[in-house]
């Protein structure tokens, strides 16, 4: 039986338009291919990281602090996965 491993990391939204359609899409597309469960929380609101709609509904403005939590079994590379996801939210965007 494999043990569960989970990681939590905070990230500040860098896109000057906040977590809008394009970063949310990028994030969800990336999260969907991961074997992990991905949750993103903004204050007390939490979203399924694989749903761009859920992510948009967090209404995360530029500068908002989000917590990303991912859960997977021990064999999966949780650290690399969370780093990649953080990078998407920390990116200043291409359409500022």
């Amino acid at each position, binding site marked *: 039986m494999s043990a569960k491993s989970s990681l939590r990391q905070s990230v500040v939204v860098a896109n000057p338009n906040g977590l809008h*359609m394009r970063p949310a899409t990028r994030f969800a597309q990336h999260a969907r291919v991961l074997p992990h469960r991905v949750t993103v929380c903004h204050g007390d609101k939490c979203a399924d990281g694989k*749903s761009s709609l859920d992510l948009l509904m967090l209404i995360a403005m530029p500068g908002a602090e989000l917590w990303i939590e991912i859960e997977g079994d021990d064999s999966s590379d949780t650290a690399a996965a969370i780093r990649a996801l953080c990078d998407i939210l920390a990116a*200043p965007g291409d359409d500022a």
Partner: protein
Amino acid sequence: MDIRRGIAVSPGIAIGSALVLDTEGVVISRRTVPVEQLPTEKVRLSGALARAATEARSRERILTEQIGRDVGILTGHAVMYEDATLRRDVEKLIDDQHYSAEFAFSRHIRAIIRRFDDLPPGHDFTRLRADFFDLERQVLNQLLGITPSEPAPLAGEPVIILAADLTPSETAQLDPRTVHGFATESGGPTSHTAIMAGALEIPAVVGIGRFLHDVSSGDTVIVDGGSGLLIVDPDEATLERYRRLRLTASSHSVAHADDAMRDVPPVTRDGVRISLLGNIEFPSEAVNCLERGADGVGLYRTEFLYVNRTTDPTEQEHYEAYRAVLNALGPTRPVVIRTLDIGADKFSSASAMLSAEKNPFLGLRSVRLCLKNLKLFKTQIRAVLRAAVHGEVRIMFPMVTTVMELRQCKSLMAEVVEDLEEAGIPFKPRIPVGTMIEVPAAALMADVLAKEVDFFSIGTNDLVQYTLAADRNNENVAGLYNPADPAVLKLIKMVCDAAKARDNLTVNVCGEMSGEAMFIPLLLGLGLRQMSATPRKIPEIKRAVRNLTIADAERVADTALKMETAREVTTYLREQQRRYSPDAAD
């Protein structure tokens, strides 16, 4: 004739018949269905979402092929149609409320949009709202079997689309062959629609305010995408003027002539050689400069090294990015590297340094930021000096406001030189040092700054913004932002005069002003002998230079400097452009 001013989002001139797009939504007749039909409704919903996703992806693909790069907006829509949460929520409405698929989907999307509307003011959700209206429309079209209404061209004539607003999907469908331009009542410079119009190279003006009730399909209209004007029912003189302008701007007819320009030197009719350089953002663009016949790179922006990542670039990453451009340009063509020129808000490693600034454009950015983060700054300077071994490298500091800042930059360079010497690393100890002139204070103090540097480069975009205290992207004040404003001309003249008095110090102009043929006589007349613009514009500038003598240009500059308003200057410069470059207008 009726002239409306909006926000210029995509340059170019379009003349044609107006096609006013219907802005009515889709009418949903069936609201609820019998219980036994609920499974069918859910199947219809799934099917519609899947088809909408497929269509969005294929439109994105077509768009990407058309414009040669990824826009990503319609992919965002596709990912949304496939969203498990979205489908689950709508299915729940069907199950619980016995809604038809259409009504459930529409209700749900409207509820989402209302949540944006209910948020406290302070952030603009216009774009997201437009996205969700678009999602609603596309899925309803699928459910109701409506094929999207193609803007029907009127008997093969070019049309100009006029609408309250265009959704990204609608914009993506516009065919540049039949749709020559568009103008909308709402929308801003950073809206998806504006970005797409720019990418498709369709002249467009947005944010005009209410005008649709004053125009009907079939009216002749002009879209002046460069100046942000919509002209309804133009008089004959205006029409004629724009027909000529359109010919000048038409990239198709000019492309041929551009090739011819590549191998001829930028020399005025009386034999004065002007140096034309390209502005680049990425190393890969260096070849574009050569293809367009530029003498070198006048502005190598280095921000790309810093953004979209969580750590600062290493010295080696800087070095390799500079090497790549030097390799492309060879050992003798100049390459002006501009040090980091963004605000701390734009990249993650520095954003921790400060809390959100109320007024970032007057805050800690560019050289100010670098002088507070010496490690970051020294890393870049080290890489520049090391790369300089391989070519004709010059370094330039942006947003310098006082001479003290410039002196700090230079003493930092001296420290870096010592470090490199001690470490025994190959580098070039002495390279030309320049300062950007883009803050009015720097222009006013140009005589003092001139003693410290080897060249000036006037960054007109910021100089205009800071001089006129107007943000060009703010629709309420964008009209003030104008490079032809007499205040701007006076500052440029001061800079040129200060340089002349200092042993003819080289002055370059980078920024959009030097990329516009209209300004070339003025800039030459003010004494500029070097200009830097986006590579695409180089042939056009070269052509303008070759049509002038220095005496012509000086006369133009003298006359323009005596004028009192930006409008007078613009009108005059356009006249002179027609006079000296008639070939461009035929």
